[in-house]
Structure formats: C-alpha cells, structure tokens
C-alpha cells in the first residue's frame, strides 16, 4: 500500500519511470548514457546486456552490482594491507583508483566517491591512513544505505574529527567547526540556520573527542545544559542534536539537490518543485538513499534526451570512464597521481566542501592536465584495453580513420561531434603513418577535446 502511494506520487512528475514506448528508443546510446551517469561507463558486453534487459531491469542490475571475483578481491585487499602497513595516505589513492577501475559494483563506487566529496576529509591533514581507510569503508557500506545512520557515524568518525580540528572539545570554549559544517555542508546548506544555532549546536558536541585513534565521549567535558537550536530547547543528550538537524525541512531538499547534480545535470539549479517528489520519497523511505537513486536513474528526467551531455565529466569520470568503456586496466599508481593533477586527488579533496564539480572542474590548467594525463594513460606500458595493448586493441579500426573515429565516438562520447571536428580527427589519423601510433593519438586528441568533457 505504502509502495503504491509512493509510486503514484511520482507518477505525474518528471521522475516517473522512463517508458520506451512513449519517451524514446531504449538503445545503445541511451544505455551508454545511463552507464556514464551511474557506473563510469561500461563494456560493449554490458551495454548489449542492458539494452536487452530494458530500463527497469538495467537499473536493477546497476543497483545490485555484479559478483566480486575472489581473485580481484584478494588483490584489492592485499593492496590495501600494504598501504596501511606503510601508513601512506598518498598510496591509498592508488588503492581506491584500483577499486574504481575494477569494481564489479560501479554504482556503489560512484556513491562512495560522492560521500567522500560530501563528507570531505583530506589526507594532507589526516595523516593516519588507517583512519581514512575506515572512513572510506563506512562510505562504501552506506553508499546506497541510510543517510541518518551515515551522518551519525561521520559525527563520531575519527578521520572527520581530526580533519575538523575537533579531537578535543571542551565545555568552557566549544569548538564550532564540526557544528558549523554539519549544518552548512553535510545536512542543511548555508542559509538554513543562524550563527546562534552554530554556537548552540557546538555545545552539544563538547566532550566528543578522539583518543588513540578512537572516538570517545568525555562526560566531564560535555555541556549537558539546555540549548536552543532551530526552534527547539532541550538538553539534546547523546546524539539527538544530529537527529534534530536531519529533521529540519530543508535537509531532504539539500541532499536530493546534491544527488541531482551528481546524477542528472550540473546546471541550471533544479527548482524546488522538481526536487519535491524526491525529497518526499527520501523522507518516506526514512532516509534510505537507494530508493531515491533508483527513482532518479530510471526516470524520464534522467534517461530522456534532454539530460544527455548535461554534465562536465569529473577527472575520475574521464579516465575511469575511458577504461571501463573499453574494458581497460592501467597502473593505478600512475592514474592516481594524474587524478590529483587533474584536480581530483582521491583522499585529497581541496577542502571540507569537497569538489564543487560542474564548470569548476575546468580551467586551462586542468584541461592541459586532462590532455597530458590521457596521453600518459594510453601510452602506459601496463594499460590494456580488452586484455591487449591499446595499439593492438585499436588496430581493429586503424586501417580506416573514418571508422576509427566513429567507433571511438560511439563508445566514449556523450554528444555527437560536429562534422568539422570529425574531419579534423580523421585528418589527424590520416596524417600519421604508423598505424600503431595512429589509434592512440586520435584517441588522445578526441578525449582531450571540449565535447569529450561532457557526460
């Protein structure tokens, strides 16, 4: 009954399920669009499978993920153990890059990365790799899970508290940092609370400490008095203040607004009216993220033509997207460094606000970094596309530059290239005599171009 009512509240909105009979063909182009948004792209094999499955089953498949092969998992765990044994946060980036490239559950990884940017914590300050790794596991466990539970866990997460200078917090002079970011960046958004709320909320977190790498509640330093926060006066014992912040009416809009920017479009800002059905669904689902993500991925709004090419690819989307679309692997150490160079160091967000995304990914510096990183990725000795070297993989098309450009464009780009750009790439290919170089240079030039940055 509840499910029926929920369904009907979405039915007349842009969030109703995409229906191929009415909304447009369910074909390779649309599946690749869904995969770019949800899964950093996908192989030819996966694309064919999801075309055959239809939209609802395709989204189910992404939400569930595929089975993890035992040897992949063993390799990943071995890599993590080595990094942790050396306490090297920088090397953690390489471990995560490996996960992103090889995971059988890319949507979960997409959401893990989203929470990392949302509850941003940086390895330049949190030099304890173990703490960062545990936090990352939390994000993965709750990737499509329960936002309320996740926020409570983050509020007591050692890496977060270290990052926000909140390892000690005394009654006499509460540290405002965590209280402020909880409202501003994690749950409500700026403008939905006052400075007085920050100061009052900060009192609730006095006595919350990190000792020897673990969260500890120090009751001697806790201010147990009454506080007035956003219209409620109470002692807010335990973590009740966190719940009270999440219970504010602006909270579900803030969260679905960020999910909209993640999955649907960078700009313009979605209207409150457009977000309202999603916000309602989030509250109805008791803050479970999965139902809302499922709604968005399967919707007319996301799968319709108007959402295609409405996002700027993040560096991970560019590089990991290239690899996953060509069934590729590469050196995760080298790629992790290049992700940092392109402005997206994993475990190294620019600040507690995370990455702003959209147009802010793009500058002349990051565009050059993208072109150069793509070159290094394609030329790296350990890079394989579909189990063979890039030159060998591309050799199936390099005899015919027109076909080369067409095949790559179809797999890798969200939007159709204008004729003049196609001609330029074809001419570039024709101008290179060695066939083994031809494919790589055309691929690099295509993926470095302006329209290739769209997803």
């Amino acid at each position, binding site marked *: 009954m509840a499910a029926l009512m929920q369904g009907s509240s979405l039915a007349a909105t842009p969030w109703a399920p995409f229906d191929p009979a009415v909304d447009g063909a369910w074909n390779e182009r649309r599946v690749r669009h869904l995969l770019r948004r949800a899964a950093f792209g996908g192989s030819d094999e996966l694309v064919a499978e999801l075309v055959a499955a239809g939209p609802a089953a395709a989204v189910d498949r992404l939400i569930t993920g595929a089975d993890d092969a035992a040897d992949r998992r063993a390799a990943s765990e071995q890599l993590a153990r080595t990094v942790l044994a050396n306490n090297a946060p920088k090397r953690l980036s390489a471990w995560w890059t490996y996960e992103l490239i090889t995971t059988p559950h890319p949507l979960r990884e997409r959401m893990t990365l989203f929470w990392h940017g949302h509850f941003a914590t940086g390895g330049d300050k949190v030099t304890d790799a173990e703490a960062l790794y545990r936090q990352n596991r939390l994000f993965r466990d709750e990737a499509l899970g329960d936002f309320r539970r996740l926020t409570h866990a983050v509020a007591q997460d050692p890496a977060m508290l270290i990052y926000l*200078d909140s390892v000690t917090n005394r*009654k006499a002079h509460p540290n405002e940092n965590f209280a402020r970011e909880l409202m501003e960046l994690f749950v409500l958004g700026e403008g939905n609370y006052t400075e007085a709320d920050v100061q009052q909320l900060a009192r609730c977190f006095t006595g919350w400490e990190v000792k020897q790498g673990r969260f500890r509640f120090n009751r001697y330093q806790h201010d147990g008095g009454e506080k007035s926060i956003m219209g409620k006066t109470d002692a807010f014992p335990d973590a009740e203040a966190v719940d009270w912040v999440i219970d504010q009416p602006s909270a579900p809009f803030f969260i679905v607004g960020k999910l909209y920017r993640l999955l649907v479009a960078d700009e313009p800002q979605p209207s409150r009216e457009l977000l309202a059905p999603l916000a309602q669904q989030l509250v109805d689902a008791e803050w479970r993220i999965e139902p809302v993500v499922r709604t968005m991925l399967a919707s007319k709004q996301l799968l319709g033509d108007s959402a295609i090419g409405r996002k700027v690819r993040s560096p991970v989307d560019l590089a990991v997207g290239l690899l996953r679309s060509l069934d590729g692997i590469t050196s995760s150490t080298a790629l992790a460094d290049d992700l940092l160079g392109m402005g997206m160091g994993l475990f190294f967000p620019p600040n507690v606000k995370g990455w702003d995304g959209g147009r802010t990914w793009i500058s002349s510096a990051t565009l050059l970094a993208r072109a150069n990183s793509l070159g290094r990725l394609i030329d790296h000795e350990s890079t394989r596309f579909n189990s063979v070297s890039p030159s060998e993989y591309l050799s199936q098309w390099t005899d015919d530059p027109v076909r080369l450009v067409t095949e790559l464009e179809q797999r890798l780009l969200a939007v159709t290239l204008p004729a*003049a*750009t196609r001609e330029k790439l074809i001419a570039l290919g024709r101008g290179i005599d060695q066939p083994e170089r031809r494919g790589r240079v055309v691929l690099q030039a295509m993926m470095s171009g302006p329209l290739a940055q769209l997803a």
Partner: protein
Amino acid sequence: MNNRQRLLQRRLFLQQGAVAGTALALGSRLPGILTQAAAAARSRADDGDRILIVVQLSGGNDGLNTVVPHRNELYQAARPTLRIASADVLGINDDFGFHPACRALADLLEQDSLAIVQGVGYEQPNRSHFESMDIWHTCRRKEERGSDGWLGRAFDRHAETAGNDPPGLFLGANKLPAALVARDTQVPSINSPEQFKFQGADAQLVADALQEGSTAGEAMTAEEDELAAFLSESTAAAVEASGKIAAALEQSDGGSSYPDTPLATKLRTIARLIESGFQTRVYYVEIDGFDTHAQQADAHRALLEQWSGAVAALTQDLARMGRLDDTLVLSFSEFGRRVAENASEGTDHGAAAPVFLTGGRVAGGIHGDLPSLENLDDGDLRYHTDFRRVYATVLGQWLGWNPTPILGQSFEPLNVLRG
C-alpha cells in the same frame, strides 16, 4: 609608442637576444648601472602598465595575531595561550607589533612599501568560509544572482588593456577563484610552468587538433549549448595561453632568489612573466591553511613566514627589474578570527581583519584604528571599512578602471596609495 608597440619591440629585442645566444642569459647579471637605466626607462609607466597581484590567505587569517595589539589587556585576556608578548613582536608603533614570523614584512614597512588597512569587512558578516569568500569574490550576497567576480567584471569591461595576453591569470591547481570569473573573458589558470604545456611525443599534434577543433568545428554545437560553449572557449583559451606562457617564460630566468615555498614559487613565475613583457594586468594566487581551529601557534607561524617571505622576495625582484612602482600586491582573507581563543588552543571563525597592500607606491603604515576589543559583534571584531572601499581604490586609483559599475555602487576610496 603605445603599449602594444612597446611590447612587441621588447619581445623582438628579447628574441634577438635569444638568437644571439648570450645577451639574454646575461640580462639579469648586467652591471648595476645598466639595469638601473633600463629600470628607469620602464618605470615611467602609465596606468595601462600597472599590475595587481592578489594574494588570497584562505581559511581566515588571524588578524589579531598578525598585527598584534600586544599591550591591549583585552587582547591578552582573550588569548591566554595564543597571545604574543610585547617582548616578541616586531614593533610597528607603540600599540602594535608584527608577529615575529613577519620579519620580511616588517622590513617592507620600514621601507614604506607596506600599507596595513585595519578593520576591513562587511555588514552582517557571514562566518562560513565559502559564503564569506564568495562575498569577497563577487561583492554579492548569496540571495543575489550572478556568478561573476569583481575582477571578472572588470575584465569584461577592460579586456583590451592587456593586449593579446589574458587580462587575468590564476596560478594554482584549485578551481578558478570566483573573483576572476567573467562572463565574456576566459581567465586561464596555470599550476606550474612545467605542467602548463602539452607533453609527450605527440604534444604538437594533439595541441593542433584541439586548437582547430575548439575554435572552428564546435562553434555550431556551442551556439545552442552553454556548457559546450564554455568548454570550447576554455579549451581554446588553454591552448593559446599554454603557447604564450611557454614562450614568455623562455625570456626570463627569474633573477632574484626566492624562498623554496609553494607561494614564493608562484610569485616567482609571476615575476618572470612580468619581466618577459607579458601584459596581463591581474595575477591571483592562494595560500591555504589559515583555518586554525586547533593548535594554532605553530601552523600560523609557518603560514605567516611563508606569506611574508614570499611577498618580500617578490618585492625585491620587482625592484631589481624596475617594476616595483607599477606593481601592487593585495593580501586579504575571507574573515579574521574570534577574539577569544577556543579550548583547542585555536580560534574559530571571526569577522573584520586587516588587509595588506605592498608595492612601490603605497602610503606605508597602518591605516585606520583597530576595531574595539570591547564592543564586539558576537565575539568578533566589528568592521569599520567596507572591503569594497579597498577594491574601489585598487580599481580606480591603481588600475584606472571606473569602480562604480564593477562594484555596483560607489565607494569612497582609501588614502593608501601615493601618486
């Protein structure tokens, strides 16, 4: 000879020097008398040659522990662990002294090359880093629309003043500061000269493909799609800036010595671009880490040392090349910090704070009073000087651009610049 011709002349001279092999390399080691003569010839710059360098101290610099009111009892009482004793400050006058890490800035003050403006801020201060920085960048409150920044708006109105070079340049790997975002002008960012080139065996092929692809081929798509247009213009700007900057940097080896710090390295690159004849009017750099909520003392000392040392090295280098009189360095932070320290031996987000101007033509010394340490706004210093007055001064009196349309209203300039 207009600017453009003079620039071409200079580039030609430098290129010939490079071809000749040795003249350029010797350039920075010419006998003093020659460099001074060259300097004199170039110091007669008009407004069109004047340069602004913005140094953003990100995170909220503790103004009270930078320009320290060390004798003030309220200051001493509010900072039981963080206060800086009278014996330790670098004296400015009877009431104020610099943090001991600001030795290089204290020297600049001696030389009349540093102006400190006290009590700068704005009404109803926002204590969020991101909102407050946005307010400083855009001169707009959140509820007002528009994403362009104060310098970006200036570029849109005065793009021609930089010749064919970009009107502004950001040195950093982070996203472009909103201050530089313009509607019609692409402001390039460069992280480091080494990384700001196409690399690899096929660099030129890729660069050529991008240049043509982004300028001609994608114009059609771009017309219908703002995001695609933005990407096409950005790519074209990146390819162009990369070539220009590589060429310019070949013409200067950066003579003076700079400290080995990230900020100093960026300022050195700026000095090299200026020396090469680059006509960019505004350069922008950031130094992050001023958000000192806990264990402030050591972190703040290191940051002040880096900032102070880098700005002083740049000042010396500009003096060497005779460009000190037409360069102004503006250092600001999004807010100061709470007057009372917190329990973590740190300070929380505050409000009003000092702004710093360095260069050959500043009216040296402290301008304005320290806001009252008694009559606080929720524990923070109350501003008395709107930050847009600083901008109005910089835009109008320094860059020669009418500040009123850029700032949206008229602000009284400050008396912090000389002739």
